[in-house]
């Protein structure tokens, strides 16, 4: 055999080989990149351009400048839906973060038995479709026959509450339901983050006589910060997009909360 890469012939062969590799990489990437381009990137920029037009989907769009945005600023429905969503996000994110952090801290304790059992149990609501979950919760929240009102009335004599149709209660009820459905996911993420903290730190702290609380304060929470940031950011993103549960449990209309 001739020596590879020697002389003009070898150079050509190498060139050909590099091109061949590039072609292979291109072919591996092409389907994903093309689909992302057609169904994500183009629609995204189209949406931005279309937001400056008036368009009925049938006739060609008409350029109207910032008119749509101006209308939004005076549209009371936009204002109230936006504030409702903000209220929901501001309520949901801290609750789900704190609940899942506490639970994962407990599950992570070395002496605790049944870690897998708890983790699995808490995760079950995560895999249920939001539609089915919302049906279950609207039955629990049912004002006339729902479990929540029946139990509260039976135990404490609390008057019946309209958990979903009372404007003051609707968002808190939604928060409870979505925390129930999602905290198990964050528990698993926190547990992965906790597992990545080297145990030497805790051993050193115990030698120094640090209390449990000091260990959590000074070692666990600071080293877990990247995971916490991840959980908070993901929760903010997903909670701003909440839709399925709201549609099923409250309908498109829902109760109207007055924002000043």
């Amino acid at each position, binding site marked *: 055999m001739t020596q590879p890469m020697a002389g003009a012939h070898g150079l050509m062969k190498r060139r050909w080989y590099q091109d*061949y*590799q*590039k072609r*292979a*990489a291109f072919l*591996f*990437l092409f*389907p*994903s*990149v093309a*689909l*992302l381009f057609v169904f994500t*990137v*183009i*629609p*995204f920029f*189209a*949406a931005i351009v*279309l937001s400056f037009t008036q368009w009925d989907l049938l006739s060609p769009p008409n350029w109207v400048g910032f008119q749509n945005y101006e209308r939004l600023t005076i549209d009371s429905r936009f204002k109230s839906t936006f504030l409702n969503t903000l209220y929901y996000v501001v309520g949901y994110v801290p609750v789900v973060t704190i609940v899942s952090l506490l*639970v994962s801290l*407990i*599950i992570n*304790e070395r*002496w*605790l038995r049944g870690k897998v059992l*708890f983790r*699995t*149990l*808490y*995760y*079950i*609501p995560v*895999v*249920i*479709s*939001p*539609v*089915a979950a*919302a*049906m*279950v919760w609207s*039955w*629990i929240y*049912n004002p006339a*026959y729902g*479990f929540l009102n*029946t139990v509260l009335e039976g135990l404490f004599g609390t008057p019946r509450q309209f958990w979903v149709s009372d404007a003051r209660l609707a968002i808190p009820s939604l928060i409870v339901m979505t925390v129930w459905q999602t905290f*198990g*996911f964050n528990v*698993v*993420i926190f*547990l*992965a*983050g906790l597992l990545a903290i080297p145990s030497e730190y805790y051993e050193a702290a115990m030698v120094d006589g640090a209390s449990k609380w000091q260990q959590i304060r000074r070692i666990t929470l600071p080293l877990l910060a*990247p995971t916490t940031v991840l959980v908070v950011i993901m929760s903010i993103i997903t909670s701003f*997009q909440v*839709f*399925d549960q709201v*549609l*099923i449990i409250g309908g498109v209309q829902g109760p109207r909360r007055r924002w000043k």
Partner: protein
Amino acid sequence: MIAGLERGNVPAAIGKTLLYALLAILGVATFFPLLWAVSTSLKTEENAIAIPPQWIPDPVRPENYTETWEMFPFERFYFNTALIAILGTVGAVLLSAMAGYALAKYRFRGSYALLIAIVATMMIPYWINLVPVYTILAKIGWLDTYHGLIIPRLARPFGIFLMRQYMLTVHSDYIDSGRVDGASEFSIFWRIVLPQCTPALAALSIFFFVADWNSFMWPLIVTSSLDMRTVTVGLSLLAGSPFRTAYAHQMAGATIGALPAIAVFLALQRYFTEGISLTGIKG
């Protein structure tokens, strides 16, 4: 393990018991709504709304399930959902692995920039795209079709990113020796690289399957005929139908809809949590 007890440390033992109790109460709170739904689904409609509530259905009425099943073409919904979830998952996992492989193991100019660009598309909220995507699908006649439901969602940046990260850990020596042996680039990918990525492939498959099975807004918008609807859309029809006050039947429907995903999860839960850990640590 139980150092607190050995030392006769009573407060520590009480603390541990309290923490167990806390986890157990939360477990009951997590599980109770589901048990209550199943219990309701097996009652007569009169017993479902009885006060005080009936804990265990008596008489048990499994007919609620068959009756709910017949209110809407649920077997069709199930077929559609299974088809979309299986084809969508297989296709999306394959495309993710291919793209992830190219980004991890081929050196070409701009490969890192391309990775960043792909990951950046994750930040685009999907509802911004709904109207333009709908218009595109309408233009090319894909509305209310299986390929219209499946193909636009085959490229998933999350999957590409996960596979790329995982494939970085595959040794390039294997790939090089495959090249020396004269294997084609695709067969190196298919026979040498993919078999080493089974944990990531399994985790991604389960993620995608459950996400597809549960997805609601996408099939709601893309489909319009009853024959093309999916299980979640069927459930929403049930929840909005005149049967919305037939609570036992409603819960039967919710149970039918939730069961497959729970079954998949319980059967494969090891891969599930492993998969999240894969992303959680990297994140």
